[in-house]
């Protein structure tokens, strides 16, 4: 039984909890819970009305069961009933249940909001507090809609109790976080800023959080908070430890508030007003000075609170990045912490120094701690601290210490925790590339990486070394020699075989003069690894062999024998078999000249951002690396140029399965999915989600076909088929996208992404869920996209699909046929109506017309089908000329409806010439390219209605 039971203990609840605790097994617990659930259900359904106490008790039991991890699907109504109880505890339990088990059931939300409204209006501070807590806990959009306007009033009203003000401030903060659009800025904001001056420190604490969040988004509006925050902070840091009474925490005056004020100041640049700036500098100096004073207590709480303020002050100093004196002092202080006996402080010092390293004022000061940090890497017992040390070494690395840091990281890698190996590999690869003075060091470093941690060397890393070797001819001979030597090891990592195969295939001739690495020896060395390798590596080696045929005619017959063997020509793997067959044939039929052309050395790769860097960013989250990288990039402008942005086109990058060949459209048939056919663009080296392939060729045409239809195949190549099925109603639509894997191999990391430009995003809302990242061979996966047309739009969203197929990265983009006409609702109207409206629409921006040549003979039925497919109603017997086609409809968007009239006048005399006119009202808002009768035409639409003008253009003009 409980040691304490405060308030009105609910005996039944305590007994139930004891029962549960006494259950010997999970099954017994479930049995006991089911019994209780049945009991509660019958009580709730029973004829006898339950008194408030029982209701509260049962609701509390349900809550307990839910918190044990079981699902609760009833009792919400009873909880809502408790909200309107006059008894505080019943109300309180009701609110707790609602807060924990939010249910978006609209009926209930209305009832809950009603109860909250009553409590907010009750002027009883305890009830108001409960209601505000509930809003802050649930924080749903419905609640924001109902209360975001009311809460600011409560917050700034003169007669609101302090405790209610505190709750109101944080409640508003939560609503602002979930629905910023629903919280209106207004007069109240200036009054909220003045809460920083409030006498009640609890109110200031709550208000500071709110102001910080608001100021991040609306800095201008809350600018006055800077001077108020500085003066408040100054009063706190200079106060004696007893001044603030209960707000002093273990001899530290108001540590929470101090941290929050320092955070608020980080929303702004250094204050412009010299007086404010001076005062702030004083504050920061005082905080730094206090760190040197002897502790007022031995308790860890004292030092934690004091150092929390210190670290936040250092963050502000780094954020301002303008006072060299303070930056260097901060660095020295952190340097002391690097050797502190508290693990927490060492961890934080390493973390904080990482950001200091990117400031030009303190970079050198940070570098002086290199030995300590290296030591931490070797001796720290906690992996998360070692991880911080790696980060700091990475951050402090520059040309002067790169060799030392890379060497230390490499040696740490031998014993590093598995969880951080991959990241260390990436960091080493980046540093080695960035600060390479001579590229032989770079090649050595990467080969060492593969030797030490081959399993953690991702494709990006070995791709990159090849890119660099190919682009720099001063290192090619050295690279060939080094990989040749490395391959001598009896067991070498497969990644080394890949790099070795590629480099020898390109530059093996540079070392062939040495009899110890003659062509035959090179070949035998590579081929001795062949059978131990996976299929993609073998495929790569086959390409190396054909390159050897060109480089070294003397080994041609040896290689042909290998290619001709059954294990190659009859290999079960299609890719390997095809390569063997084709290469063998190529080596037999092609003349030396053709061979030399086809198998020419790879052209240099376009300069682009290192894909390794992209990978590291992805791994660490966008903020952490980017800032640091940007800072480093500026500082290290003298070193190796720094990464450059990737060019949009992937044209010069070879398809990964054609790796060494880079054949393009040259004969013979390229192996694997060729880049030129099927519209599949492959970009091996930029395996980052931000790199979106250009639109697949042919997608424009395919897209056009979907303007008048909703179902069909949108895209197809050798690997992938994309089918669509869609339905639209008024301004809403739903699209089913089917991805079919046409191969027998799994697609991995299969990620379709919908991309809308900012403009499009505001006008068209698309919602979808991610699909399973693995698509089995021959399987089809489905993705549902919910579509809402908010306003008229012209562009179409792009569907980008990225996945891995047999070790190669695939990237496909197609336009998704969601066009404005999909939201057309046909409208029937009589001839008279039609022409009356038609004539009203005479201003130029209300109409558009287009004359175009029909590609195909005009077929009445097909044309009719097109107009209906386009979405408008086909109005029969409206136009006096029976040869003309007339249509009408309304485009539905969430914000407006646009009426459209259209008329198509085929000019049959001029041999299938067609005149089509589509006209619009009021301001022209958008241009929609539409496709009717196999021909592009212009359709402009506008806010109200479109009409067709009766302009006739003579054929032939």
């Amino acid at each position, binding site marked *: 039984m409980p040691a304490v039971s405060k*308030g009105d203990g609910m005996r039944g609840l305590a007994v139930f909890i004891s029962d549960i605790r006494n259950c010997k097994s999970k099954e017994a617990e479930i049995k006991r819970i089911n019994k209780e659930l049945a009991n509660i259900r019958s009580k709730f359904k029973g004829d006898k009305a339950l008194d408030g106490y029982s209701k509260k008790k049962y609701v509390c039991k349900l809550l307990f069961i839910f*918190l044990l991890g079981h699902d609760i699907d009833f009792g919400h109504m009873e909880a809502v009933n408790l909200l309107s109880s006059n*008894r505080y505890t019943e109300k309180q339990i009701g609110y707790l249940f609602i807060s924990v088990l939010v249910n978006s059931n609209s009926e209930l939300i209305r009832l809950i909001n009603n109860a909250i409204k009553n409590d907010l209006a009750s002027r009883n501070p305890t009830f108001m507090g409960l209601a505000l807590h509930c809003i802050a806990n649930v924080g749903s959009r419905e609640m924001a809609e109902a209360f975001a306007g009311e809460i600011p009033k409560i917050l700034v009203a003169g007669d609101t109790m302090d*405790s209610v003000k505190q709750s109101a401030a944080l409640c508003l903060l939560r609503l602002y976080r979930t629905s910023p659009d629903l919280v209106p800025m207004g007069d109240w904001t200036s009054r909220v800023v003045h809460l920083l001056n409030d006498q009640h420190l609890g109110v200031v604490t709550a208000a500071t959080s709110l102001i910080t969040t608001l100021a991040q988004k609306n800095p201008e509006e809350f600018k006055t908070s800077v001077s108020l925050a500085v003066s408040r902070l100054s009063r706190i840091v200079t106060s004696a430890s007893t001044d603030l009474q209960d707000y002093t925490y273990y001899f530290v005056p108001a540590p929470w508030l101090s941290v929050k004020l320092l955070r608020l100041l980080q929303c702004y640049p250094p204050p412009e007003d010299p007086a404010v700036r001076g005062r702030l500098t004083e504050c920061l100096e005082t905080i730094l000075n206090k760190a040197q004073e002897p502790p007022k207590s031995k308790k860890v709480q004292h030092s934690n609170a004091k*150092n*929390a303020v210190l*670290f936040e002050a250092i963050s502000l100093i780094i954020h301002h990045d303008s006072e060299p004196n303070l930056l260097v002092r901060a660095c020295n202080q952190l340097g002391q912490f690097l050797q502190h006996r508290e693990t*927490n402080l060492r961890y934080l010092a390493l973390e904080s120094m990482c950001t200091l390293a990117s400031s030009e004022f303190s970079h050198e000061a940070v570098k002086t701690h290199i030995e300590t940090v290296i030591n931490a890497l070797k001796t720290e017992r*906690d992996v998360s601290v070692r991880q911080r040390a790696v980060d700091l070494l990475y951050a402090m690395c520059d040309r002067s210490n790169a060799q030392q840091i890379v060497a230390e990281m490499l040696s740490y890698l031998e014993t590093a925790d598995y969880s951080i190996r991959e990241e260390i590999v990436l960091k080493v690869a980046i540093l080695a590339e960035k600060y390479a003075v001579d590229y032989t060091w770079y090649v050595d470093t990467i080969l060492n990486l593969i030797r030490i941690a081959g399993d953690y060397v991702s494709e990006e890393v070995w791709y990159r070394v090849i890119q660099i070797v190919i682009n720099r001819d001063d290192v090619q001979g050295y690279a060939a020699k080094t990989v040749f030597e490395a391959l001598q090891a009896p067991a070498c990592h497969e990644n080394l075989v890949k790099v070795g195969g590629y480099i020898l295939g390109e530059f093996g001739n540079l070392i062939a003069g040495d009899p110890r690495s003659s062509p035959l020896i090179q070949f035998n060395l590579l081929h001795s690894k062949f059978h131990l390798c996976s299929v993609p590596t073998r495929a790569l080696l086959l390409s190396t062999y054909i390159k050897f045929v060109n480089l070294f005619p003397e080994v041609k017959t040896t290689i042909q024998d290998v290619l001709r063997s059954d294990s190659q020509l009859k290999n079960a793997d299609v890719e390997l078999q095809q390569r063997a067959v084709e290469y063998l044939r190529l080596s037999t039929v092609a003349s030396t000249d053709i061979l030399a052309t086809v198998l020419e050395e790879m052209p240099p790769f376009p300069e682009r951002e290192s894909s390794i860097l992209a990978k590291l960013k992805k791994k660490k989250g966008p903020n952490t690396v980017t800032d640091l990288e940007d800072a480093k990039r500026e500082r290290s402008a003298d070193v190796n140029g720094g990464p450059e942005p990737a060019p949009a086109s992937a044209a010069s990058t070879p398809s990964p399965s054609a790796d060494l060949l880079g054949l393009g459209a040259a004969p013979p048939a390229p192996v694997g999915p060729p880049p030129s056919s099927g519209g599949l663009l492959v970009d091996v080296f930029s395996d980052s989600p931000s790199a979106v392939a250009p639109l697949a060729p042919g997608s424009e045409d395919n897209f056009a076909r979907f303007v008048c239809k909703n179902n069909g195949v949108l895209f197809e190549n050798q690997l992938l088929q994309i089918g669509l099925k869609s339905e639209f109603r008024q301004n809403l639509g739903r699209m089913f996208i089917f991805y079919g894997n046409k191969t027998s191999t799994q697609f991995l990391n299969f990620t379709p992404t919908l991309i809308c430009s900012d403009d499009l995003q505001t006008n068209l809302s698309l919602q979808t869920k991610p699909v399973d990242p693995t698509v089995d061979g021959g399987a089809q996966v489905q993705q549902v996209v919910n579509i809402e047309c908010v306003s008229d739009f012209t562009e179409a969203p792009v569907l980008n699909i990225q996945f891995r197929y047999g070790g190669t990265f695939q990237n496909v983009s197609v336009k998704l046929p969601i066009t404005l006409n999909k939201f057309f609702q046909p409208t029937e109207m009589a001839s008279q109506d039609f022409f009356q409206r038609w004539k009203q629409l005479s201003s130029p921006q209300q109409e558009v017309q287009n004359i175009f040549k029909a590609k195909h003979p005009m077929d009445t039925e097909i044309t009719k089908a097109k107009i209906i497919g386009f979405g408008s109603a086909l109005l029969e017997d409206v136009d006096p000329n029976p040869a003309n086609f007339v249509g009408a409809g309304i485009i539905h968007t969430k914000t407006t409806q646009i009426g459209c009239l259209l008329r198509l006048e085929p000019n049959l005399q001029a041999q299938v010439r067609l005149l089509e006119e589509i006209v619009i009202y009021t301001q022209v808002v958008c241009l929609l390219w539409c496709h009717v009768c196999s021909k592009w035409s212009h359709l402009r639409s506008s806010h109200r209605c479109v009409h067709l003008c009766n302009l006739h253009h003579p054929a032939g003009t």
Partner: protein
Amino acid sequence: MQFMLLFSRQGKLRLQKWYISLSDKEKKKITRELVQTILARKPKMCNFLEWRDLKIVYKRYASLYFCCAIEDQENELITLEIIHRYVELLDKYFGSVCELDIIFNFEKAYFILDEFLLGGEVQETSKKNVLKAIEQADLLQEYFHIMAL
């Protein structure tokens, strides 16, 4: 702060407070993952760790682990003291608090937390003021009891 979890050495969840909207499934997944990670750590290790894109601050008090998830720019040490202040509040209210108090009076543990933290931010740091609010509520209910008699 994004959420706070209290769990026992056996990995049983005793209190969960979420300041962001997540599905029940996601909450369970996060809880399972974090409980496992933290229980696997040795006592002398530091109280912070990186997890997904969040920072985890945790501390063990007797048989209970208190664990908070904060965002990148938030302050680890002050979060550690948020945990401590909450423990002090529980201690003061229950009188030398133990895990059983929190099990049997879980609703009180939630009420105290709501007075201290709201929407993931510190609302009131004064121990006196927080407890005053809770005690007032306790009094209020007794008052209503008298009224009801």
